[in-house]
């Protein structure tokens, strides 16, 4: 499956997450977010960086963990990334859809 961001044809999975990590850049992140109707603020970026760093360290991620990160509360997380915060934040961060039920 392919999707066009900033004029580039990128490989995505069936949920729209980037398949190749090297395709990700901050510009692409903004384009994915825009496509979802989200304008990225500093807080969004702080979370995106946190998620990418955790993924780099092979840490599993959950909404509860984000709530304990000290960056946002769970409520704020839902406000920043509506309709499925971890799923959508991961998509913008160029990460696969989280596997956890939590």
């Amino acid at each position: 499956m392919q999707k066009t961001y900033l004029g580039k044809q990128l490989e995505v999975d069936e949920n729209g997450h980037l398949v190749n990590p090297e395709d990700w850049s901050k510009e692409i992140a903004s384009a994915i977010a825009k496509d979802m109707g989200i304008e990225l603020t500093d807080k969004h970026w702080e979370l995106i960086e946190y998620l990418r760093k955790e993924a780099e360290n092979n840490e599993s991620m959950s909404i509860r963990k984000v709530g304990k990160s000290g960056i946002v509360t769970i409520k704020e997380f839902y406000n920043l990334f509506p309709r499925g915060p971890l799923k959508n934040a991961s998509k913008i961060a160029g990460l696969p859809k989280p596997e956890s039920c939590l």
Partner: protein
Amino acid sequence: MEQPPIKKISIILSKATIENAYAAMIMAHGARSEGIEANLFFTFFGLEVITKDKLKDLRVATVGNPAMHIPSLVGILPGMQALGTKMMKKQMEKLDVPDIDEFLEMLDAEGVKFYACKMTYDMFNLQKEDLWEGVSDVVTVGNFYQLAGGDNSEIVFV
């Protein structure tokens, strides 16, 4: 053909065993994390899960539960329920599943709505102040069906 996505799920919890409470709560959380609206309706013994002085003391069913793989006669022995509960809590902690009270707070922050069954509430002679603060309302079955309605809405009984 692509299925229309579920928009709302309303989960009825009728039991107070910790495994049933977790099942209902994990399903509600999973719904919210997929952008699906979620209601929890607590009826009969399920009401204990949102009763302040009960919610921290939920137990695993060690009797009449074939999945425990112990004879029911062993399950009735003193301490078995506490042991089973302790083991389950330990496993849950490993999976990063919060305790019931923290889980309720988390679901509340996620926008899950909590409703107490009016008939059970009356039957147990409960007062508003007996219920956990996150409970939106005490409702009749009829009101529950209204709340649960809408396109692509599902009702699940736990």
